[in-house]
């Protein structure tokens, strides 16, 4: 199968792999923080821990990929006009990109500072 012809299958697989990671991360997160009283120090220390920091970065990547594939499908299904669809997808992709860079900055600052 060529790269282009397999793009639907790649999205399908990516959507499921990212979903699995997201659910596992949320389960671990709930296990770690559920029922705990949370302070600024404990929260910041947890985010700064390399394992949590890397897991969070992966989580953000998985979440944004998942949001992109799902949101793209919704836009393509309901927006009929090609130009509107094009503009919406560009705005959506840019928005997710900004979310990603913003979160990357937050996590790296918390991880080093």
């Amino acid at each position, binding site marked *: 199968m060529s790269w282009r012809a397999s793009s639907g299958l790649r999205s399908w697989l990516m959507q499921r792999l990212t979903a699995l990671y997201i659910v596992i991360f949320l389960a671990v997160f709930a296990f770690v923080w559920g029922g705990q009283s949370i302070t*600024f120090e404990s*929260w*910041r220390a947890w985010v700064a821990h390399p394992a949590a920091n890397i897991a969070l970065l992966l989580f953000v990547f998985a979440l944004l990929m998942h*949001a992109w594939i*799902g*949101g793209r499908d*919704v836009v393509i299904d309901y927006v009929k006009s090609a130009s509107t669809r094009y503009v919406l997808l560009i705005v959506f992709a840019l928005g*997710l990109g900004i979310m990603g860079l*913003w979160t990357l900055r*937050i996590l790296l600052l918390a991880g080093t500072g």
Partner: protein
Amino acid sequence: MSATDNRPVFLNLLRIRQPVMAVVSIFHRISGVLMILSLPGLVYLLNLSLSNQAGFAQVSGLLTSPVFKVLAVLLGWALAHHILAGIRFMLLDFDLAIERGAARKTAWLVHAGALGITLWFAGLVFGVWP
């Protein structure tokens, strides 16, 4: 004009009685879109909570306001429904509970489970139970 142009168009979704499986599917989309729309707010809160003591206190304060509690419960429903429906879709991928009767049952389970989790979460958020 061809004969096919005279076919009745009756696609008002509100007037079509949707099977419960279709409702799971559309709720999966609605909950997904809701969570996407909440992303900027969530990243903002994450940033504030990690910036300094005052920011963290500000986030804690925000989360005690009734408006944010209602939003949290709404997002809680979206997440619960999205995950449960997602698990159901993955089972269907593997041909599990694929027959109509079973698929209908799991669809009701998704709705009921999401409502149950949301009620529990709402009780937690509004301090009905500790």
